[in-house]
C-alpha cells in the first residue's frame, strides 16, 4: 500500500482552501448587478392571512420589488413536493396537503414565508420588510401531537385529526402470540427529543436568470443539487432541466438539513426572472432555527416479551411522530422505513410489530437529521434492552450476548423486511467491552463514590441500514426517485483525471477519499486526480449525499467507471503493443503484455486515445472518458457497539461524560483518519441529543429555543476525548465492500449516554430520565426518586 492508496490516512486535499479562507460557500459568491432579498416570516404559528399590504414597503429606498404568495399562485407556481409516499394500514395513501413556497391564505408555523422583499442592498431589504403590514387572523394552534390528534385545530383544513398517515410494519398476530407465550413483559414509554440540526453555515441562495438564453442558475446550500433541480424544475417552477443549473460548491455542514428542497430556493429562482437580476438571500441564524427542517420528535410506547432465559420473543412498538406543518422532502420516510425496519437491531427477536401515527402540527417541518429514524429506533431498543436486563436481573452485557445474531446466521432475514447481508456483531461488542475496560468499571466507580460522585456505564449496540438503496426496493416502499449514483471518470490526454461524482461533499472529505479510489484503481499519482461535485452543469447526474450513501453507492459508481476506463485502455494498449487484449495485464498504472517486457504507461495510453495516430479506430472511438451508474443490490448494514461512562455530581445534577468508546463495523475503510473524524462528529451530536439539545415550543407554537442562547449546542468543554475504532467485516452488497460511516455516531451514542446515567443513579432509585438529561432534570430525578 502506498501513502495514498485505499486504506491510507491521506491528509485532505480540500483543507488548504478552507484553512486559508478560500472556501467557496454560497454566501461568499456575488454576481454582477446582484440584488438582496429579505423574507418576511409569520410570527404566528397558525393564522389566516387576511391582507398583506406591501404598498408602503414598496416605496422604501432601494426596493426593487416585493412579492407575496398570491403573486406566486398567480403564476401557477406548484407545491413543494414530498419524495416518499407512505400508505396507511388501511391501504390509503398518506394525506399530502399542498405546501406553497410562500403562504397564500394561511400561515402554518412561526417562520412560514409571507413575502419577499428585493432591494439594492441587504439593509434596504431588511428595512423595507419592517414596513409590510400584515393582517393576521390568529387561529388556535396544534402544537403537541395529542392536541393535534384531537383535531381541535386543523393545520390543513382537509386533513382530519391532523393525521398524515397511520402506518404499520411487521406481523401483528405473530407478535401478539409471542406476548401470550412470554415469561416476562417489559414496557417502556419514551420521547425522542426534537432537535434542530444547526449546520454552522446558515442556508443561502443566489438565483440568476439570463433573459437572453432563458436559463436559470441557482447557487444553493444543498446536499444534492440534481435532486433540487428535478424537484424544483419539474414540480414547482416547471423549468425544464436543461434550462436550470444548480450549483452547490462548498457547503458548511448539512447533517440532513440541507437535503431538502426549501421554499427559498424556489422563491428566489422564480423572483430572479421577475426582476431579471441576480438575487441573493442568506439566512440569519434566527431564520435557520424556524425554517431548517427539525429532526426526531417521537413519542413511543413499546413492550418486549422475553422467555424465562431472557431471550427476546417479541417486540411491540407504537409511535407518534411529529411531521411539522408540512411534508418536507423526505419527512414521511423517516418515521417509517428508516425506523420501523431497524427494530430488530442486532438481535434475534423473532416477531416484531410497529405502528406509527404521523401527525401534522403548527411547527417547523420535521425531516431527516443525521441518523434519521435509526437513532429513534436504536434509542428505543437499547433503552428497552437495558430495562429488560434490570427487570429480569440478567446483566446488561449478558442479555445482549444471548440475543445477538451470530456470525453464522447471515444472510439474516429480520421480521421487519430487511435482510442483513453480513456482519459479526459479537466481535464489535466484545472489542468495545475490552476497549472501554468494562471489567475495570467497578473500581472506577468506587473511586468516584469516594469523591462524592455517582458513576455509571452504559452500553448501546446498533444496526444501521444505509447506502440507501436499491432503487427497486425503495420504489416498492414508496420512494418517488431512484437511489442509484453516478460517476464520470474523464482521463485527460496526459493521463491526469477529473472525477465527476453525483454525491456531494460538505465536510465528508470526498475530494480526498474518492481521489484515493481513482488513484489506487488506475495506478496513477494521487495528485493527478481532481474530484468535481456539486454542479449540475458539470456532473452528469447524481442523487446526492445523505443516509451515509456517498461511499456505499457513489463509491462503486466511481469504481465501475474506472474499470470501464481500464477495459478501453487495455484495448488501446493491445493495439499499440501488437498483442491480443487477453494478454494485456494492468498493474500499478502500467499496461504490459504478459510474460514480456513490452509495456505502456497509463499516460502513454491516454495520449494515444486523444492523438489516435496508431489506434484501432475501426473498432474503438477515440477519447478516454467513461461514465457509470451504480444501483446497489441491497442496503449496507454498518453496526457496532458504543459504551459511555459518566460521572454525576448529585449535588448539582451535572453529568460529565468521562469516557466514550465506539467500535464500529463500517466495512472497508478507505481513509481511517476521515472515518475517525466522522464517528467523532456523530458521537458529539449524539451526546448533544442525550445531554443538551432539545427544541421547545410554547403552547402557542412559539419556538422558545430559537437561538444559541437557548438551544444548547455541545461545546468543546462539554465533551471528552473519544475512543474510536473500527472492527470491520467487509461489506457484501457492493464491490467496494464498504458500508457507510456518516451516521453511526449519532445513532449509537444517545442510548449509551442515557443508560450510563441510569446506571449511575440506579442506587438512588432513579428509573427513568428523558433526553436531554440536563443538570436540572437529573437533579429533579434524584430528588423525586
Amino acid at each position: 500500500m502506498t501513502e495514498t492508496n485505499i486504506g491510507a490516512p491521506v491528509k485532505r486535499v480540500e483543507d488548504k482552501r478552507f484553512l486559508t479562507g478560500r472556501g467557496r460557500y454560497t454566501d461568499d459568491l456575488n454576481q454582477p448587478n446582484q440584488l438582496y432579498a429579505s423574507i418576511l416570516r409569520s410570527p404566528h404559528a397558525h393564522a389566516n392571512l387576511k391582507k398583506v399590504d406591501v404598498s408602503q414597503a414598496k416605496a422604501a429606498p432601494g426596493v426593487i420589488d416585493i412579492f407575496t404568495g398570491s403573486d406566486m399562485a398567480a403564476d401557477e407556481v406548484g407545491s413543494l413536493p414530498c419524495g416518499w409516499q407512505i400508505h396507511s394500514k388501511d391501504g390509503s395513501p398518506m394525506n399530502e396537503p399542498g405546501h406553497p413556497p410562500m403562504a397564500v391564505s394561511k400561515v402554518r408555523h412561526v417562520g412560514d414565508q409571507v413575502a419577499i422583499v428585493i432591494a439594492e442592498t441587504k439593509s434596504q431589504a431588511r428595512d423595507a420588510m419592517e414596513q409590510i403590514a400584515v393582517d393576521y387572523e390568529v387561529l388556535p394552534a396544534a402544537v403537541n401531537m395529542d392536541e393535534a390528534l384531537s383535531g381541535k385545530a386543523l393545520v390543513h383544513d382537509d386533513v382530519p385529526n391532523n393525521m398524515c398517515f397511520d402506518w404499520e410494519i411487521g406481523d401483528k398476530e405473530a407478535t401478539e402470540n409471542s406476548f401470550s407465550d412470554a415469561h416476562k413483559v417489559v414496557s417502556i414509554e419514551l420521547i425522542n427529543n426534537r432537535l434542530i440540526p444547526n449546520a454552522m453555515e446558515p442556508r443561502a441562495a443566489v438565483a440568476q436568470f439570463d433573459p437572453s438564453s432563458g436559463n436559470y442558475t441557482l447557487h444553493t446550500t444543498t446536499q444534492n443539487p440534481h435532486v433540487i433541480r428535478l424537484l424544483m424544475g419539474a414540480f414547482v417552477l416547471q423549468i425544464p432541466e436543461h434550462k436550470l443549473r444548480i450549483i452547490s460548491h462548498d457547503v458548511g455542514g448539512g447533517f440532513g438539513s440541507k437535503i431538502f428542497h426549501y421554499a427559498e430556493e424556489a422563491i428566489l429562482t422564480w423572483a430572479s426572472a421577475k426582476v431579471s437580476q441576480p438575487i441573493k438571500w442568506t439566512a440569519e441564524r434566527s431564520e435557520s432555527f424556524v425554517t431548517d427542517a427539525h429532526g426526531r420528535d417521537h413519542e413511543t410506547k413499546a413492550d418486549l416479551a422475553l422467555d424465562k432465559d431472557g431471550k427476546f420473543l417479541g417486540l411491540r412498538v407504537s409511535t407518534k411522530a411529529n411531521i411539522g406543518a408540512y411534508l418536507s422532502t423526505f419527512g414521511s420516510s423517516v418515521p417509517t422505513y428508516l425506523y420501523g425496519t431497524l427494530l430488530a437491531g442486532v438481535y434475534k427477536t423473532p416477531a416484531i410489530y410497529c405502528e406509527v401515527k404521523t401527525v401534522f402540527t403548527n411547527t417547523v417541518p420535521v425531516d431527516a437529521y443525521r441518523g434519521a429514524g435509526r437513532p429513534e429506533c436504536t434509542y428505543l431498543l437499547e433503552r428497552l434492552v437495558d430495562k429488560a436486563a434490570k427487570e429480569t436481573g440478567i446483566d446488561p452485557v449478558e442479555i445482549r450476548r444471548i440475543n445477538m445474531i451470530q456470525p453464522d446466521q447471515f444472510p439474516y432475514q429480520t421480521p421487519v423486511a430487511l435482510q442483513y447481508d453480513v456482519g459479526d456483531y459479537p466481535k464489535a461488542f466484545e472489542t468495545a467491552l475490552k476497549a472501554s475496560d468494562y471489567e475495570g468499571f467497578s473500581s472506577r466507580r468506587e473511586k468516584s463514590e469516594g469523591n462524592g460522585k455517582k458513576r455509571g456505564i452504559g452500553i448501546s449496540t446498533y444496526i444501521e441500514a444505509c447506502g440507501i438503496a436499491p432503487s427497486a426496493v425503495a420504489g416498492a416502499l414508496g420512494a418517488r426517485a431512484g437511489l442509484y449514483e453516478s460517476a464520470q471518470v474523464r482521463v485527460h490526454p496526459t493521463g491526469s483525471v477529473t472525477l465527476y461524482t453525483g454525491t456531494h461533499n460538505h465536510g465528508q472529505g470526498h475530494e480526498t477519499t474518492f481521489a484515493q479510489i481513482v488513484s489506487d484503481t488506475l495506478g496513477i499519482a494521487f495528485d493527478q486526480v481532481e474530484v468535481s461535485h456539486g454542479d449540475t452543469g458539470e456532473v452528469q447526474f447524481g442523487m446526492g449525499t445523505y443516509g451515509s450513501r456517498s461511499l456505499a453507492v457513489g463509491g462503486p459508481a466511481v469504481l465501475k467507471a474506472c474499470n470501464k476506463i481500464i477495459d478501453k485502455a487495455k484495448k488501446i494498449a493491445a493495439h499499440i503493443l501488437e498483442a491480443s487484449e487477453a494478454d494485456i495485464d494492468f498493474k500499478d498504472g502500467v499496461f504490459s503484455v504478459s510474460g514480456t517486457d513490452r509495456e505502456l504507461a497509463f499516460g502513454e495510453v491516454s495520449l494515444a486515445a486523444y492523438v489516435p495516430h496508431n489506434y484501432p479506430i475501426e473498432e474503438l472511438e477515440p477519447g478516454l472518458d467513461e461514465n457509470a451508474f451504480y444501483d446497489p443490490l441491497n442496503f449496507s448494514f454498518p453496526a457496532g457497539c458504543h459504551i459511555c461512562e459518566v460521572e454525576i455530581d448529585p449535588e448539582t445534577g451535572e453529568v460529565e461524560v468521562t469516557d466514550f468508546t465506539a467500535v464500529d463495523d463500517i466495512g472497508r475503510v478507505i481513509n481511517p483518519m476521515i472515518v475517525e473524524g466522522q464517528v467523532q462528529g456523530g458521537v458529539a451530536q449524539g451526546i448533544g441529543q442525550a445531554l443538551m439539545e432539545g427544541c421547545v415550543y410554547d403552547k402557542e407554537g412559539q419556538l422558545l429555543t430559537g437561538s444559541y442562547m437557548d438551544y444548547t449546542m455541545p461545546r468543546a468543554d462539554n465533551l471528552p476525548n473519544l475512543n474510536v475504532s473500527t472492527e470491520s467485516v467487509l461489506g457484501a452488497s457492493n464491490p467496494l465492500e464498504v458500508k457507510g460511516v456518516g451516521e453511526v455516531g449519532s445513532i449509537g451514542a444517545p442510548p449509551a449516554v442515557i443508560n450510563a446515567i441510569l446506571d449511575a443513579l440506579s442506587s438512588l432509585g432513579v428509573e427513568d430520565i428523558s433526553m436531554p438529561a440536563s443538570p436540572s432534570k437529573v437533579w429533579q430525578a434524584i430528588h423525586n426518586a
Partner: protein
Amino acid sequence: MPTVSMTVNGENVSSEVEPRTLLVQYLRENLGLTGTHVGCDTSQCGACVVHVNGKSAKSCTMLAVQAEGSEVSTIEGLADGDTLHPMQEAFRENHGLQCGFCTPGMVMSAIDLVQTNSNPSEQDVREWLEGNLCRCTGYHNIVKSILAGAKTMQG
C-alpha cells in the same frame, strides 16, 4: 456616511461605510475577505473571529467604525505565500476540520490562545474554545490540532 480606516492583513484600507456596518460585514462585503464567516446572529458561534490589534475578537460584535485605526488580521493573512501558519498546518495534519465553516474562527481563536498561554493543557484548550462552535468534528481533532499547533508555534 462616515469614513473608516484601518490596517487589514498589513494593508491600509479606507472606505465610507454606513454607521451600522459590522466589522464582519465590512471585511466580507467591502473588502471581499470572505474567509471570515457569519454563523449566528447572537455572538455565540465564533465563526467570525479575527484579530484586532493582535487579540481575538468576534467581528460580528464590533462595528466597523469601532475598528478605526486598528490592525485587523483575518484568516487570509496568516499563511506566508504557500507556507501555512503552524496553526493552520496543525489543523491540516490532525484533521481538525471537516466542512471548514467554523475553521477560520477556530484557527484565529487558537492562535490568540497560544499567544496568551504558550503551553496550554487540553483543558485550557477546551475552555478557551467556549466561544467557538463546531458541528462536525466533536472537537476531538480540533483540540488535538491546537495542542500540536501550540508546540510548533513554540518550537
